[in-house]
């Protein structure tokens, strides 16, 4: 749902920490009308200009907290990402992205479902890999965006 609106179009920017470009970030919305318990959000399939950034390079900023890895948010079992709220997805990528347009392929991975499923036990042991289609909830296919880097930090 909301295929073209899950990433805010003017939100792509490099993250600068201590004067060094540590990566980049995007503002994202939840594709499901009911939001989700944060523990159930398992990260993103994210590819920029053909380079895939795995969940281990991603961190997630929501509810006024500093960015957390998706290993950390797994334990946020009573914290909810509300439907109305924008979150910031940070990607660790030293040097960040270059200025100009970027092609971004994107899919949200959410383990929320309508009741018990045959995959439940398997997903406790090994959550689905974002982008594989499993756990794609209300983003059933990978969506492509063309976004411009929105700051001067890009070299």
């Amino acid at each position, binding site marked *: 749902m909301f295929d*073209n609106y899950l990433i805010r179009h003017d939100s792509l920017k490099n993250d600068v920490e201590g004067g060094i470009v540590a990566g980049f970030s995007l503002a994202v919305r939840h594709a499901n009308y009911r939001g989700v318990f944060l523990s159930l959000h398992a990260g993103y399939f994210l590819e920029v200009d053909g380079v895939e950034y795995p969940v281990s390079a991603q961190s997630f900023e929501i509810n006024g907290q500093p960015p957390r890895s998706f290993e950390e948010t797994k334990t946020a079992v009573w914290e909810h990402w509300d439907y109305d709220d924008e979150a910031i997805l940070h990607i660790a990528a030293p040097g960040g992205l270059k200025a100009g347009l970027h092609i971004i392929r994107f899919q949200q991975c959410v383990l929320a479902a*309508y009741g018990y499923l045959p995959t439940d036990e398997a997903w406790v042991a090994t959550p689905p890999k974002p982008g594989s289609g499993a756990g794609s909830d209300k983003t059933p296919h990978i969506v492509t965006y063309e976004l411009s880097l929105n700051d001067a930090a890009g070299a």
Partner: protein
Amino acid sequence: MKLGVSLYSYQQAQFFKELSLEDQIREVSENLPGADGIEIIDEMSLHYPDPGLAFIERWFGWMARYKTVPVTMDVGMDVLQFRDHVMSHAECAERLKRDIRLAKSLGFQNVRVLSTCPFEVMLAALPEAERLGLKLGKEVHQPMALEGRQVSEIIEYAQKTGHDLLGIVPDFGIFGTRPSEVLLAWYVRRGAREAAGDAAVELAHLLRTGRAPLDFEAVSRQTAGNLRVAFKSFVGTGLCEPELKPAFEALKRFADQRVPMASALDYVVVSEAILLSNTSPDTLRQLCPHVVSVHAKFNYMSECPGWPGEFQDIAIDYEAGIKALRDGGYAGYLNSEYEGQRYFQDRTRAEMQSEIEQVRRHQGMLRRLIAP
């Protein structure tokens, strides 16, 4: 029958921050003649799981100002919430009890559980509903039918114990006669062929008239979303749950005969036909004493040919469903539940549907159909 709206209908306007929760309630109150019922999905409309006391005060202020009535709160069940294990039925019942208390704190009369909620979970939470005086209704959503075990176990229990707090929430999607035209158009924009949509409409007709080349008993026990995933996987790998295999094989054959060199997406389009319930309106008439509230689901309101200003959903048999409710003596709420906005959300904002307009048209149809 009384009229209301599930605020689920305004999910897109909420996403784009065009309608706040108060705006949605005001729309029901001021622009929908005769409607005063409010239904929400807790996780969508509230800061979940605890909206806070200040919000509750505001909520009751809105209900008083707009003369609206909290009717039904819809709740979810996420069995992987704790991530390190699959929730037991007892844990699911605990979540449901929390949601029942939340519903009570906002003045709701009913709590709707998902069609997939095990009966044992409902039973375990029933004492909490009883303590607080709320009804608990299981949604009957396509492709589920009114005739299956998932409904009969509730009715038998209610009849045996004389319990009137446990019942069902029929979703009008169960009276679907064909895949919605807006769903099929969405598939075409994604690359499906028109022939696949035609085949889905043909198969839906054959199923309704008892002439389809396959049996869908097993299929009706799954949710629509789960079936779409399972069939897509079957087309790709040939693998599926054994009980689904005969239906999936027959479905694939049906598609192959009508859509040469069908793509994976074409197969999915044809499979939309098996997501219809083919349930009997007369069963609904008989079950009316157990109907807690009703989701008046629709996907697209188009103008009735030759009848300017009057609208219908060509893919759902509203006349039969409403007649069944009337003949069965149902006096509760019919809550508009618009879902078709999602089939335009691959497009630009300007090309998406106006939920406000669609719900106004739908309420006009409901007023027409329930008029004495």
